[in-house]
């Protein structure tokens, strides 16, 4: 049984590492067609949208936790706060909400 867990962990690590590593080996960079390069430039912002929604609405069964946290983070970032301040501010605001 114990051996099995270790084997499972090794298997998981291999199948996780390969998709992370392969593009660096397969592609030299800048040789893809312009349209694909344009799409890849869009990927970070699209990824952020997909990582935020719907996840943030599901952090608590009370949907306001996510909404208030998102609002606080958006407000702080919009005023130009750096990311760490944004994160700490959102945690603080949600903590205050949970105490009320």
């Amino acid at each position: 049984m114990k051996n099995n867990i270790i084997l499972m962990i090794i298997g998981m690590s291999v199948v996780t590492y390969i998709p992370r590593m392969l593009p660096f080996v397969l592609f030299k960079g800048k040789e893809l067609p312009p349209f694909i390069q344009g799409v890849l430039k869009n990927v970070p912002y699209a990824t952020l949208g997909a990582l935020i929604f719907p996840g943030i609405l599901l952090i608590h069964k009370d949907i306001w936790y996510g909404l208030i946290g998102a609002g606080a983070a958006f407000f702080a970032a919009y005023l130009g706060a750096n990311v760490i301040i944004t994160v700490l501010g959102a945690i603080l605001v949600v903590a205050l909400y949970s105490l009320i």
Partner: protein
Amino acid sequence: MGELSIKRHSSDFKKGVQAGISIGIGYFPIALTFGLLAKSSGLSIVETVLMSLLVFAGASQYISLSLLSYGTGIMEIILTTLIVNIRHFLMSTTMNEKCEEDRLVNKMIYSFGITDETFSVAATKEGTVTTPFMFGLIAVSYSSWVVNSGIGHLVGASLPKTLQESMGVALYAMFIGLLVPSLKKSRKVAMLAVLAGVFNSIFTIEKWLAPGWAIVSATVLSAVVIEAVELLNRKRGIQHEK
């Protein structure tokens, strides 16, 4: 010359470390909870830390615990892990375009540390991303993940409920903090994010796709649609000028 390049390297490494701090904070509650759940699922502390050390992928580590508790076979768990983590292929392809030219072996080392969070930070950074920056960024994130998994198992208790609940917002706040500065500058960024968020919400809530596939499909769909619309607009613009 050599000294100059060492100086540049150490300052880029520091910048990476600084950029990684919010990830380190965000990983703290998640890794702690992972350690705790791993303990209650019957994993030893060695196995728990080993998994965080070798896999370094939050969602799939959580999923493996719940599959283990259902008595799922190991091959199925590994296959599920592959499906959940295949989205990193897209992220690494994107980073490969953005990272500075370097020896393949360095890229192969830092590619291990590409997660949703390190990718988000590195990919939204202005200009080229250097190898020392990636190493600094990943060093902080990885340490937080591994160490806090161990602490979670060791302490065997989670944070006070209020703190646990409010820290759950940390990584989402980070994603918002990374998105907003670009959002202010460009309408395209706003459209990309909103469209991907809507697609992912539909795929996830309607349960059409497994979580890993939902994110990757929503991302690709949004990135392609917006790029195609822009291309069409540009072509139309040129015809107009003629």
